[in-house]
């Protein structure tokens, strides 16, 4: 009897862990990402890179003129070197959030691309991991590009700064997996706007432009409940060479975020993709 190749491939996975929802097709989904990327609007791609650079130029060299050196924990550093790592962390967050909320929501409800994908022998977990994986690849590329701007400006003070790239990917992973989980509960674009309402104050108050120590203790405590200040501490610590155990704590925050996000996303996959 003739057995189509697609059937043989699917049957070979029988009995494997998670076979109902996962078929090991993440590489194929990344392949789609690259094909679509090749012909995408370069403006959108470029703006993801330009945004932090523009912040760096306007704030770093604008405010940096008035305030060339600031004192943080008794140490004097250039203002622009202080904010650059925060901008790297923030852009990792923004990219991952955009990919995992707006982008996913659009593909799900408008283009219905996932409906097409899920009519194949892939499972919903393939799609979720593929999307998150693609967000990470983009996050990695943006982080490298931003570092390529920072380094010649002398803004990476320590060789530990190289680790800011994997740190940015870790941060993107945390935000992407939680973003995906949040998207699974959203019913309309209006509801998705809530994400932005949450992101903007977090960006403004997480210590991007001045040290958190300007705030009273209780406010610092609240700010530290949210992820962005941990992201900023982590990247800033690496770029400035302030290496201590606290950095592991900040990284751990994102490991927890990744795990919680993935648990909810996996749980909600049927609601998200298989109504």
């Amino acid at each position: 009897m003739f057995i189509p190749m697609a059937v043989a491939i699917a049957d070979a996975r029988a009995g494997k862990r998670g076979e109902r929802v996962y078929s090991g097709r993440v590489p194929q989904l990344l392949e789609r990402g690259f094909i679509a990327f090749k012909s995408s609007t370069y403006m959108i791609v470029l703006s993801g890179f330009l945004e932090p650079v523009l912040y760096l130029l306007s704030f770093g060299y604008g405010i940096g003129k008035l305030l060339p050196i600031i004192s943080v924990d008794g140490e004097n550093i250039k203002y622009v070197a202080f904010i650059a790592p925060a901008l790297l962390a923030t852009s990792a967050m923004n990219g991952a959030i955009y990919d995992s909320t707006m982008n996913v929501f659009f593909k799900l409800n408008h283009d219905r691309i996932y409906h097409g994908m899920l009519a194949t022998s892939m499972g919903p977990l393939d799609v979720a991991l593929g999307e998150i994986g693609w967000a990470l690849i983009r996050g990695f590329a943006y982080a490298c590009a931003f570092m390529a701007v920072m380094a010649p400006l002398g803004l990476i003070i320590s060789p530990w700064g190289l680790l800011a790239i994997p740190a940015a990917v870790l941060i993107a992973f945390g935000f992407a997996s939680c973003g995906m989980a949040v998207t699974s509960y959203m019913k309309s674009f209006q509801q998705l706007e809530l994400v932005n309402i949450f992101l903007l104050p977090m960006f403004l108050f997480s210590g991007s432009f001045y040290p958190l120590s300007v705030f009273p203790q209780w406010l610092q405590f609240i700010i530290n409940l949210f992820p962005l200040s941990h992201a900023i501490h982590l990247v800033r610590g690496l770029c400035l060479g302030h290496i201590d155990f606290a950095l592991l704590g900040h990284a751990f925050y994102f490991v927890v975020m990744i795990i919680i996000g993935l648990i909810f996303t996996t749980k909600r996959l049927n609601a998200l993709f298989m109504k």
Partner: protein
Amino acid sequence: MSNPLISARGLTKKFGDFTAVNGIDFDVFKGDSFGFLGPNGAGKSTAMRIIGATSQRTSGSVSILGKDPEINGPQIRAHLGVVPQQDNLDMQLSVVENLYIYGRYFGLPRKFVKNKIEELLTFAQLEEKRDTKVEALSGGMKRRLTIARALVSEPEILILDEPTTGLDPQARHILWDRLFRLKEQGVTLLITTHFMDEAEQLCDRLIVMDKGSIMAEGSPASLIKDYSTKEVLELRFGSDRNQSMADSLRSMCDRTEELPDRFLMYTDDGEALLEKIYAADFHPKTSLVRRSSLEDVFLRLTGRTLIE
């Protein structure tokens, strides 16, 4: 008789309190061309999604090639080609890229897919559009591409949800021709439609669905034989007079139907009935004798027309 390829018993799907599919039973055998005929909202697409293992049923059982779509989703979907009601082509990609990546989603090797693409482009008559972005294709081309895409994995079962809705007559005929070829190659077809001519053209066997339930089942010819007369006489008296004429004509044959714009009389000999009507001094503005169709079957079963 061999085992059915697809079998459903008491298949039910609820959305909240609303029952979209209400305990339907059916069997589809290998090589069948099996239709679901019903108006919008009958529950056809919902049933197709459950068979396609992309939606979970509320109750009842479904078996596809002996497997349960809720347990063996990926394995079942490897056997299926799906043409959904709403095209969901990848708008960011070109025609060939759509075919290519879809084959890859099944885990097929690059080389296999690339060879297959050429054959599919010819089948879908899209050779000249190969590098065109999908957005720029006409509705008929998109539909043909969606069908070609569904064939990239060489499926044994092809599920087509309203394959020609929204297409012009010429595009429909091209599509029907493609589907005939697939049927000749032994592909099992599952087709939903609310066009009775499409059901008559394409289906060996069909179920008539309304409001989530099956109203009747059989071949197009047997359904017409069981639920209608050989011929139908259609009369128009002008919209304000159809009603009063209907009251006087009703006794002249076994069954009649009043529609907003015309009056239908069911008989085995339309010409003879028409003569009798003229003889009785009725003067319809227009009259037409035609053979019974599935539309008449649906009208008989539900009191409504398929397309409102």
